[in-house]
């Protein structure tokens, strides 16, 4: 282990419902879908038509502005629907899978013998490109850019997050091949952020271990501690779980989106991992595994950054986790502001829960638990924001549309997910991630 970076600020929310490291049955989905909304910075252009027969790896849609970025079908079958919403916005492209899966053949390749352009082309054609995001803006990377460095995060520190060491078992060769491919794409280095104590053995990349609470696993935090992004620089970021899929593309020659999805949360009856293909229905993962009393919230992803979904909805592209928590809309808490509050989770010590120790697991529901206010308390965000950035002032600059200030205060380094904990602890219940997303979008428009 080369060097360990210790993260001090942050917060591990000890939720009930961790996934045990066992494989569960499930994952056979009646339909699969691509949901364009899960990718930032994309204007979807649908290529496939309803009724088309597609293979796993066939193009379903492209980005209108950067048509070389392709989004491919995760399975072979028939395109059954292109669902549209208001202003004909594409909501999802649905594929009904065949009984026998067929794959587009991209050809097995030895990464070491490929040039940068060949690697790029393979990733684009194989539908793996959307997994590469860029800072600034936290959007799907532009293939024509040459990034300063590429950062891969090989652990997730969010509440109830899947254990990467478990996911990677048996996939080490694919991970290495994927990293080798990424290394071709930058003149700088590929940094892999791992959890301190991880036994991951990788070559050709710079491994940096991180120790500390969430958001230590956020790639943004890792970049800020390894080599921060300055104005004018572009870096790319990828999750190691997606690097495995990239490696598979080279090693097997097919677009195989099979991954392990963790089933977590206090309202699940069975917890563990399911082998599933990206884009499967939530039902295929959760059916028969939740305490359904009509008041549950299902989330694709984790409780901080995930998307609210229903049984008929789809697992989002980047997610390796579904979480089920109580919705809480049926709870009537009498005089909540006045009670001593043992058992109510709060980072502040204004409820007496902090006296009960740290090992206790909590069941949190989806209630906001208060009205939206102006920013009143100071230094709340800073305590859970381990970057060399002043979160409150950056947020205020975004709210004020002050572009110079945003740049100066570090907007190029952040993604909405970096503010998720700030949003969690916020007394004033402001939707900070949305503010950051709006700021990034605004800036992207101004700059391009």
């Amino acid at each position, binding site marked *: 282990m080369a060097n360990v970076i210790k993260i001090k600020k942050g917060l591990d929310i000890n939720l009930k419902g961790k996934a045990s490291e066992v494989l569960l049955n499930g994952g056979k989905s009646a339909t699969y879908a691509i949901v364009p909304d899960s990718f930032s910075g994309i204007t979807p252009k649908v290529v496939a038509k309803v009724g088309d027969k597609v293979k796993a790896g066939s193009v379903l849609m492209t980005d209108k502005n950067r048509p070389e970025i392709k989004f491919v079908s995760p399975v072979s079958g028939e395109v059954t629907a292109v669902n549209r919403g208001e202003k004909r916005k594409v909501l999802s492209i649905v594929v009904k899978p065949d009984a026998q899966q067929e794959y587009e053949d991209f050809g097995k390749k030895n990464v070491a013998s490929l040039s940068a352009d060949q690697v790029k082309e393979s990733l684009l054609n194989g539908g793996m490109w959307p997994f590469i995001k860029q800072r600034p803006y936290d959007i799907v990377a532009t293939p024509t850019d040459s990034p300063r460095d590429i950062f891969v995060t090989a652990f997730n520190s969010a509440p109830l997050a899947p254990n990467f060491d478990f996911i990677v078992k048996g996939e080490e060769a694919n991970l290495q091949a994927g990293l080798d491919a990424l290394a071709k794409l930058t003149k700088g280095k590929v940094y892999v952020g791992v959890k301190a104590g991880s036994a991951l053995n990788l070559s050709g990349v710079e491994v940096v271990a991180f120790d500390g609470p969430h958001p230590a696993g956020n790639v943004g935090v890792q970049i800020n501690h390894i080599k921060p992004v*300055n104005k004018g620089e572009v870096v790319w970021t990828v999750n190691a779980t997606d690097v495995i899929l990239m490696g598979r593309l080279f090693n097997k020659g097919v677009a195989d989106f099979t991954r392990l999805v963790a089933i977590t949360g206090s309202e699940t009856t069975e917890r563990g991992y399911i082998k599933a293909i990206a884009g499967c229905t939530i039902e295929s993962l959760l059916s028969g595994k939740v305490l359904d009393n009509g008041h549950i919230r299902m989330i694709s992803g984790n409780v*901080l950054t995930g998307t609210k979904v229903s049984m008929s909805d789809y697992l989002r592209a980047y997610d390796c986790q579904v979480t089920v928590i109580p919705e809480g809309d049926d709870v*009537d808490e009498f005089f909540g502001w006045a009670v001593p509050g043992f058992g109510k*989770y709060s980072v502040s010590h204004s*409820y007496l829960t902090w006296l009960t120790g740290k090992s206790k697991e909590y069941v949190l529901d989806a209630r906001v*638990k208060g*009205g939206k206010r102006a920013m009143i308390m100071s230094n709340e965000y800073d305590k859970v924001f381990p970057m060399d950035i002043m979160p409150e002032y950056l947020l205020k600059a975004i709210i004020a549309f002050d572009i110079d200030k945003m740049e100066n205060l570090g907007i190029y380094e952040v993604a909405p997910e970096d503010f998720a904990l700030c949003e969690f602890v916020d007394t*004033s219940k402001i*939707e900070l*991630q949305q503010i950051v997303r709006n700021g990034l979008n605004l800036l992207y428009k101004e700059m391009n």
Partner: protein
Amino acid sequence: MKALRNYLNKIKPNFEEGGKLAMFRSVFEGFESFLYVPNATSKTGVHIHDSIDSKRTMTVVIIALLPALLFGMYNVGYQHNLAIGANPGFWMTFIYGFLAVLPKIIVSYVVGLGIEFTVAQWKKEEIQEGFLVSGILIPMIVPVDTPLWMIAVATAFAVIFAKEVFGGTGYNIFNVALVTRAFLFFAYPTAMSGDQVWVRTADTFGMGAGQVVDGFSAATPLGIAKVAETSTVEFPWSFEDMVIGFIPGSIGETSVIAIAIGAIILLVTNIASWKTMFSVFVGGALMALIFNVAGPDTATAQMPWYEHLALGGFAFGAVFMATDPVTSARTETGKYIYGLLVGAMAIIIRVLNPGYPEGMMLAILLMNVFAPLIDYYVVEANIKQRLNRVKLNK
């Protein structure tokens, strides 16, 4: 409890847009969220939230204020007993003070919350709970004999012109309670200073009537020091009295011990910043020491630092007013600077101004103005450091 919930659900439609009581919608929502934690769930963003909200925050501050308030009530009775030379026992003393203070609390809340409710309804917003704290601070920082109508006028002025015109809770530049106090101070100076206003000598609702004993003075220690012609002054109280709080003064400010209990509550619950609080005391002590060495030859300048910190509104202001997160510096470095300057400025005003004995109120209000400037420079320093990083990389 279920019955109450059902009843609220039943009458709720009346208050919604188009209902016959829609004009009281904010008030209804205010009471509903007072009774029950709102069970609205998150729509976008994080799916779980910390249990704290601004209602809880304000509740904790009020709890922290209670020791000082209760002691203040007792001290009102105690000082009255000294004035008329009576000793009716602990409970009667407390009840006398309680009855003297209670109308002030009621007036402050009724006027302030009345304005807040009206504005909230007018702007079609939720009622914000900021005034819950201001409303209890106001009666605690005035002399016991302040007429109720003055409190009403000053509270109305402060809530409207120091808070609502800026946009409401969280947007104000000045601490609302201190603006109330400043308004009283400048509009009705005779009711706010001198040696007549600090102790109630008359009866309260017929209780505690009596003749003022000969030679009784109700001057505050700082007032005595101010008019002293020598450079040393003999107080009729021991330092212990000053710490415990058996001295004349504004209702809530006298007891250092009661304020310390409040300070501990605020710090343990992470509601107030220890950086601000601590540096106010440091700033005050340092400035007092400087005056001891190099100050003018007056009693206030030569007063030892610990008396400066224990007397007047210094401790109360440091713990409850300077730490107001909205009007104080919000950056961590800024908090040290802000606190030091508040403390130093309070002592400078006490020592150097020729007119009035206390300086804490003006010091905090003055620094309220400078807080954004302090933060500006702290943020600029961060920006500069970030720009240097670019240069280093080149």
